[in-house]
């Protein structure tokens, strides 16, 4: 009996598009990390200017996903996959937006010097968020439920560092307080990137099991 070849080809194309979008997004966070570490204005500006690529992907994925839903009436794993691909694209778009926000904040840090403890902690947070997003995308790609489940634990580390900034600040130094306020804003953005990775993990678990995660 003839299967739904053309439909499954379109679904495969959609899948490949979201993986490409994920690769681009991971690269953007990685560049954002470097822009912050070196307070590299040029790199930061490049991230702000390059955001269109991600926006184009999300439009394409949503448009094609909606068309498949409307015209092919997918069910079961196909339905869950399309829904999750569309949600994944939305999460990735937000992650890219947060990187743009961070890059704008980097532009506003001109003239500041990052003290070592701030640099180290921020770098750890950035790396944690990158690892989480990579893990979330891998869990999707490999349909790996345990990878998806591991994300909330990884998120605890990022949250912990995020909370430590205000505590660790030397409040007698007016200059450091001023810097930390700006850095905390950035660390909040990173924390939200990590939250998106956790949400992607929950979506992936739904895709695999058909059960919603509490």
């Amino acid at each position, binding site marked *: 009996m*003839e*299967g*739904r070849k053309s439909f*499954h080809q379109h679904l495969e194309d959609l899948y490949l598009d979201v993986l490409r979008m994920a690769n681009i997004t991971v690269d953007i966070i990685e560049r954002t990390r470097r822009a912050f570490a070196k307070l590299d204005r040029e790199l930061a500006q490049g991230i702000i200017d390059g955001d269109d690529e991600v926006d184009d992907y999300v439009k394409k994925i949503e448009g094609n996903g909606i068309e498949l839903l409307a015209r092919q009436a997918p*069910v*079961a*794993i196909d339905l*869950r996959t399309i829904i999750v691909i569309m949600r994944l694209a939305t999460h990735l778009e937000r992650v890219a937006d947060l990187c743009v926000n961070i890059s704008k904040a980097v532009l506003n840090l001109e003239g500041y010097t990052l003290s070592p403890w701030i640099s180290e902690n921020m770098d750890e947070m950035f790396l944690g968020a990158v690892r989480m997003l990579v893990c979330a995308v891998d869990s999707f790609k490999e349909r790996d439920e345990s990878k998806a489940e591991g994300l909330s634990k990884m998120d605890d580390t990022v949250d912990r560092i995020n909370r430590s900034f205000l505590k660790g600040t030397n409040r007698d130094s007016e200059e450091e307080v001023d810097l930390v306020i700006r850095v905390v804003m950035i660390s909040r953005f990173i924390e939200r990137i990590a939250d998106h990775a956790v949400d992607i993990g929950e979506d992936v678990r739904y895709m695999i099991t058909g059960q919603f995660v509490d």
Partner: protein
Amino acid sequence: MAEEALENKMVIKNLSMFYGGFKAIEDVTFDVPARRITALIGPSGCGKSTLVRCLNRMNDLIDGVRVEGEVNLDGENIYQPGFDTIGLRRRVGMVFQRPNPFPKSIYENVAYGPRLVGIKEKGKLDFIVEDSLKKAALWNEVKNILRDSGQNLSGGQQQRLCIARVIAVQPEVILFDEPCSAIDPVATQLIEDLMADLKENYTMVIVTHNMQQAARVSDFTAFMLVQEQGEPGRLIEYGDTNTIFTNPTDERTERYITGRFG
């Protein structure tokens, strides 16, 4: 979601059916909840039409047919010796793939069944005809042409006439054997809407090769399959329709409904 406890109108237990030496369906067990729509889906030749015809002993009319197992209607096995099959076919009516109105007027098509069970009074017959045509969502289209031949109606109208004809004898269960495969999409939509309305009073079972139709109209879905050529059709999975179409348990169900065969 809280769901009221469902009463089972029919309970099918370990049902097998043979055409002579050939086993067409094997060991099928599932429930047909009252005032709900149960869909039977599966590829051509999987035994779904054969199965639905077992539910009102329609297969009795074919030579060499033998049935094992039980089909209980309100707790009574319809295959027990001495069971009233004429009464059974009134209680469990059937609508077929091709609309098959009698070569008589619209009125007579609907009045035929009630006349058979002895209703002669014109006022009473008039009432039944109007009421049945209204329930079949056909009254407004035919109320001025009741004396015209039923066979002059469009395909979709003929199918609703056949539904009215079934309703006229006040059945408890209505079996639909691919009721929309010979009619256009607009008429199909009308039949599907009609089934949703009829759910208030009737238990329905629909055989359909259109999976999306099963997904749209039914509350419960049973998936049947012949695994290897020559084997009997078996029930692979039965469950509430939402679960079957979003997260089926059996991989074979998943492969069939997503269009991946083999």
